[in-house]
């Protein structure tokens, strides 16, 4: 009985998640026309390419920087919202979560337009301060900066909401006790807020690390990997190699390099989630 209720779920996971995952490993060992087994030739080919190492480095820079700033910004904004009188919180929360609600493909188009080389609204505004024009997407440094900026814009609200929920669950008595003991604001954050929110921070950060590391939409629409492949991350490069240049085995190979980092993050999340389950 119970088995039949879960059967569709099991079939879905087995056929459309597990099977493709293993199939991907099989594909990665074939040659471009997918008729010959070549072993690890695709992998060794990648190791010899500079672009590949650039993608590895850019993926790590992109994911770590973006997640760090998302977490920091989310934490700060959550505190400010938490400071407000309870009545006004809803309105602000609603406004600040908007970036997360808009489909990223749509909002990235707006950013693309804001970054437009000749009509950039940012450059228009900056010109009044005597700054710029900034080549937002044309220059390697600025293009990397821009994709991270858009990712932070999109993802920070998620952290804000998670932290806000966590902040509300910290009992007020702890702060009162800390205040009586003469703790200043920094000590209160360090010794009360952070330990109480430790688990939620860990889960949110790891989760975001997975999503950011595997990001596709933002980089694809904003730069398509350019200029000179400098903003490519694993997903966009795998798309370019595997689908656009139709070298499916090599594309599968590229995307498989995401697995180790995703797996490590997943293991830690699972540990924290089950810990939470045991506490409750």
């Amino acid at each position: 009985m119970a088995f039949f209720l879960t059967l569709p779920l099991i079939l879905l996971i087995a056929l459309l998640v597990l099977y493709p995952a293993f199939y991907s490993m099989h594909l990665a060992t074939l040659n471009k026309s997918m008729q010959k087994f070549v072993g690890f030739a695709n992998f060794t080919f990648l190791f010899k390419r500079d672009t590949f190492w650039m993608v590895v480095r850019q993926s790590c820079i992109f994911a770590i920087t973006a997640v760090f700033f998302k977490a920091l910004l989310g934490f700060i904004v959550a505190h400010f919202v938490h400071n407000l009188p309870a009545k006004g919180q809803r309105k602000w929360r609603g406004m600040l979560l908007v970036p997360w609600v808009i489909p990223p493909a749509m909002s990235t188009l707006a950013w693309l337009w804001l970054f437009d080389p000749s009509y950039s609204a940012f450059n228009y505004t900056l010109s009044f301060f005597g700054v710029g024009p900034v080549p937002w997407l044309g220059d390697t440094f600025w293009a990397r900066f821009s994709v991270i900026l858009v990712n932070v814009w999109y993802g920070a609200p998620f952290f804000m909401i998670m932290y806000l929920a966590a902040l509300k669950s910290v009992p007020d008595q702890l702060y009162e006790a800390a205040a009586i003991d003469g703790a200043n604001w920094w000590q209160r954050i360090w010794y009360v807020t952070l330990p109480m929110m430790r688990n939620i921070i860990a889960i949110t950060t790891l989760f975001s690390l997975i999503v950011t590391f595997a990001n596709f939409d933002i980089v694809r629409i904003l730069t398509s990997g350019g200029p000179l492949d400098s903003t490519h991350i694993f997903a966009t490069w795998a798309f370019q190699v595997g689908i656009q240049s139709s070298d499916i085995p090599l594309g599968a190979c590229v995307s498989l390099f995401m697995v180790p980092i995703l797996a490590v993050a997943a293991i830690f999340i699972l540990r924290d989630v089950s810990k939470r389950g045991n506490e409750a």
Partner: protein
Amino acid sequence: MSTLAIDKGGPTRKIKYRSMSRDRAWALRWSYFFLVVFAIFSLTPPIYMLITSLKSSAEISAATNPWWVFHPTLANYVELLTSNQFLRFFWNSAIVSIVVVIVTMLISIPAAFALARMKFWGSTTLATGVFLTYLVPDSLLFIPLFKMLAVVQDLTGITLLNRWYVLLFIYPTLTVPFCTWIMIGYFASIPKELDEAALIDGASWLQTLTRIFIPVALPGLIAATIFAFTVSWAQFLYPLVFTTSVDQLVLPVGITTTLIKGDVFNWGQIMTGALLGAAPPLIIYAFLMDYYIAGLTAGATKG
């Protein structure tokens, strides 16, 4: 909470003589100041979409103040909403999202019910597996899935590539794991006495599910539905890989591929399309914000 006032004043002796209410007032002022800054940062792109969508191509290329509309016009909206191509994208997106929501619920509610209440061989492993599946990103699977579809198409002769309906099978891999996971959490929080009482009264498992679990866990169900809808509506990578003909595209892919013609960007129309594409999730969010947030936070806190 006078954290911020002390932040500004620094830990000097003076603080002791300052009144609590003045501390609080300053904390509040600083909070409002920074929140306004963050709100501007958050809302600039959507507002800029709206501004641009109200401009004519002539006004955009005249490069006047980009933050202001001098001659507002609805021409972009009229043009898109009367274009069969755009309506086709909208229709494809709507049908795919709605069917995926229904499929997701049909799969995940029974499964969550079984995993929350009936202990059977491998049930805990399966629950963990569901959560792990939720962590598998689309960018890991699009290449093997693409090849799989090509192989199945060759074997059976059923056209799968470049057809919108193939998305109906693919999207549930993104929605079902999360929905099952949060439904397990909601179902598990229902007191056992409730369904035991129903069983004693002679209700079947199916009746317990439809008469007790679904009504009691309705908030969770709504949160899961919203999640499934927004994920399906926003999905970009799978349709970009699996569909190419103009009449098969969904909204996000349609806007990014057809409205950008070569190097000619018709920004007024692109922004209008993007705004119309963002509208359904935004409208749902505006009316059901609390459910939306419940679904968002449930992922890490439930279970």
